[in-house]
């Protein structure tokens, strides 16, 4: 009974972790500018990695290695939004204009022809 519960707990955590990481991947590829991409990378990717690492910690059981998995979970939870914040702030300080309604359309880069010469 308790083994069955643990099994389904692991499966549900893995499925949700995979789902949120998929949302993060789609967001990083499809969203229009760096700030929106930093937002999806900090939120959904942290949640997906956290859920998958929680599944690993649950699968390892009462082992000494579970401490590593839980430490890794907390580390990812703290450092991933910090890194995304640092990246977005460096984008702001190097003068990248956020894409709003007032922004001209040609500020948005065309994804079909990436031109590295102009930015």
């Amino acid at each position, binding site marked *: 009974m308790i083994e069955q519960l643990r099994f389904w707990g692991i499966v549900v955590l893995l499925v949700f972790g995979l789902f949120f990481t998929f949302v993060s991947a789609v967001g990083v590829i499809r969203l229009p500018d760096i700030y929106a991409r930093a937002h999806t990378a900090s939120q959904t990717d942290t949640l997906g990695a956290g859920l*998958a690492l929680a599944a690993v910690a649950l699968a390892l059981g009462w082992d000494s290695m579970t401490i590593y998995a839980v430490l890794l979970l907390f580390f990812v939870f703290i450092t991933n939004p910090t890194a995304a914040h640092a990246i977005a702030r460096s984008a702001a300080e190097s003068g990248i204009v956020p894409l709003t309604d007032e922004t001209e359309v040609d500020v948005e880069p065309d994804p079909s022809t990436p031109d590295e010469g102009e930015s």
Partner: protein
Amino acid sequence: MTADLLNDIFLVTAALFVVLAIMMFYRAVAGPTTQDRLLAVNVLGTNTVVILALLAAGLGEPWFLDIALIYALLNFLMAIAISKFTVERGGVL
């Protein structure tokens, strides 16, 4: 039987995470700014950490978690260092 099934589930999930990590290469190659590429590499590194942890559980080799921990540390250091370096040449860096 349940343990074998669980190991297979972990390995299949790791394979799907590899596919999601490869999707990040699009933004790392095509991203118009430096920060876009840095963000894509950062997300790819987080996915790598998760893949290493899933392999540690799926293959029954728990020392993979050591490598995952070191990779997470280096990934965070890389993101902070490059994003600091892109502003005013990083000051002291």
